[in-house]
């Protein structure tokens, strides 16, 4: 992370020009009661003030008060309104980037103040000063470029998919089909970069006899982690355009926390009315089960199983029960960690942190609360439904020597599918 390089004006402009209702409330009504401090897994693990959610927000608020608030302008010392200097920015940088945006703090706050809302703004502003993990910026740039070169890459991609299809026809079912951007399909499935998000989905859709096709794009949105609404919208816009051109009825997102959250919570703001339904693959699994289109083998997992609610799928999107229904069928010993669902502890891998090598130490420390939960529940298999959680939990497993298996729900579902192998 680099030092301040000119652009302080741009940094301050970015902060002061942001104007929306949530920010307006959050700027004034925080009473600094500190209820949020014990909500944050970073703070619980480190005890450092920069990890207390209200403190993170306060750093930005102190800058904003100097410019936006009456008392802040005329009596700045009263509300600690200030101008940024290098040491302030050093602290701010850590406070903004050592956060997963899980919003557990908003649950604890008496006013539901969303500190992650500040994180988003702070990251965007800090990047004007080049204060932030370069790799995230590079990943976001690469994704945007890929979006622009999509026709050029299409042939290569289709070839690769054909190979996967061949393999699955031999291993799974001879009539399995994977198409790419097929017009007239009902469902457009947008995977992540990795065949582990395509293979189990293909099996699922085949078993459910679904009319589906694969997107050329991936669901993950690195610009989102940068607080860059413009570029995040541009990346998601590729998928919207594709879906409209193909005339699909449903856009289905994979096991990706932040992408699913943007699908349900941000796309309305970015795109307005859309001519298709938006679902998570978890909801499709649930629908197929309810409609009797798929059947799952009962009790195939003999070891104790638990489920880790990804913050972005759980408290931020509401998908609590769908994975549990599956797990209750396919396992003989399903156990809940405590707390779970809304108050579940974040694994520490969100907010783009899993992709940043220099933040590994921090996120291993931040995962402490999660590790203790896993130890207490005594499960041998920890299931989750978010790619970043998967990676983080696997790292935690190794780092803390937990000796558990980390599995994806979609993968387990595909494994448990009852399929008539002779169907043509």
């Amino acid at each position, binding site marked *: 992370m680099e030092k301040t390089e000119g652009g302080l004006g741009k940094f301050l402009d970015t902060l002061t020009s942001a104007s929306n*209702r949530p920010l307006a409330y959050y700027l004034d009504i925080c*009473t600094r*009661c500190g209820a949020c401090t014990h909500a944050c897994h970073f703070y619980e693990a480190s005890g450092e003030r920069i990890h207390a959610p209200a403190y993170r927000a306060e750093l930005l608020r102190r800058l904003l008060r100097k410019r936006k608030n009456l*008392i802040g302008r005329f009596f700045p010392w009263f509300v600690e309104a200030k101008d940024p200097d290098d040491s302030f920015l050093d602290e701010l940088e850590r406070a903004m980037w050592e956060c997963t945006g899980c919003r557990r703090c*908003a649950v604890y706050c008496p*006013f*539901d103040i*969303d500190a992650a809302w500040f994180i988003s703004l702070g990251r965007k502003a800090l990047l004007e000063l080049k204060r932030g993990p370069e790799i995230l910026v590079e990943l976001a740039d690469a994704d945007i470029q890929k979006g622009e070169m999509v026709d050029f890459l299409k042939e290569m991609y289709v070839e690769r998919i054909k190979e996967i299809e061949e393999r699955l026809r031999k291993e799974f079912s001879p009539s399995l089909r994977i198409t790419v951007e097929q017009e007239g399909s009902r469902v457009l499935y947008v995977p992540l970069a990795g065949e582990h998000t395509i293979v189990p989905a293909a099996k699922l859709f085949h078993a459910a006899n679904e009319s589906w096709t694969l997107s050329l794009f991936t669901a993950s949105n690195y610009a989102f982690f940068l607080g860059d609404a413009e570029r995040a919208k541009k990346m998601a816009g590729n998928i919207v355009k594709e879906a409209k051109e193909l005339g699909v009825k449903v856009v289905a997102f994979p096991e990706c926390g932040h992408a699913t959250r943007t699908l349900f919570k941000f796309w309305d703001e970015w795109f307005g009315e859309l001519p298709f339904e938006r679902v998570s693959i978890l909801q499709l699994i649930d629908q197929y089960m309810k409609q009797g289109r798929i059947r799952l083998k009962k009790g195939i997992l003999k070891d104790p199983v638990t489920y880790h609610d990804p913050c972005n799928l759980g408290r*931020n999107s509401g998908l609590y029960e769908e994975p549990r229904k599956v797990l209750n069928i396919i396992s003989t010993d399903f156990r809940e960690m405590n707390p779970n669902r809304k108050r579940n502890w974040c694994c520490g891998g969100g907010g783009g942190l899993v992709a940043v090598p220099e933040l590994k130490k921090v996120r291993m420390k931040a995962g402490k609360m999660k590790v203790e939960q896993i130890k207490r529940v005594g499960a041998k298999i920890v299931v989750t439904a978010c790619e970043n959680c998967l990676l983080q939990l696997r790292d935690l497993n190794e780092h803390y020597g937990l000796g558990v298996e980390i599995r994806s729900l979609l993968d387990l579902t595909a494994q448990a599918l009852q399929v008539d192998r002779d169907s043509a």
Partner: protein
Amino acid sequence: MSGKGRASALSPLEYLLLYITPYISVTVFVGGIFYKLHGWFSAPRTSIKLTIHPAPQNEVSKVISTLSDLLVFADLMRSNFSLWLGAWSMHLGLFMALIGHIRMFYDYLAALGIPAETAEKISHTGGGIAGILFMTPLFYLFARRWGGIIKELSTPEDYFDLFLLIAIAVTGNHMRFFQHVNLEELQTYFMGLFTFTQAPPPKSGGLLFLLHYALVQLLMVYLPFGRISHLIGGYFSKHLTKR
């Protein structure tokens, strides 16, 4: 304090606090609230949903959910029990005391046909409980700001607020427990303010009344512009996560 029944026998400071500043404080208070609301509502709405799940499904249950959460500080109760205990009892005491204060402007107890002596007892007991309930947690809330992460979070404003509230509570409780402040004198004085005539200040209130009154006016002038605006803004902020 002189106050021998004629307003002109008061010192300039007393005169200022009794007959000039009250109008200013009320105006600044009401105007300030509108200014604050205007500031909040002129910020553009966003259709980005900040939902915290599970969230109620229809509009009515959303409003009820927000209100009931705020009434008992439900989230705080589950998040930090000792803070909840302090904060909720303090606010409860405050609102009980405020309801009692209405009797200075409009005697609802008399309007309900309750005889003066009984009303006096109700005010004394209820007001006494309210006063203790309001004042005691303030010391706890103040003390916790002197160490740990709460100290790092706190700004000078936070200490000022608590100090101001403690001073208001102590002066108010002194009048409640150790002085017999005559309700009629209070009513006469305030009626004078409403009618823009200068009625004499409550003699039985003495210096402590003046102090309490001045502190409350200071609170009114400051409230809309500081963090105590959470009294108004808290509802809107909380409601965002129900959408």
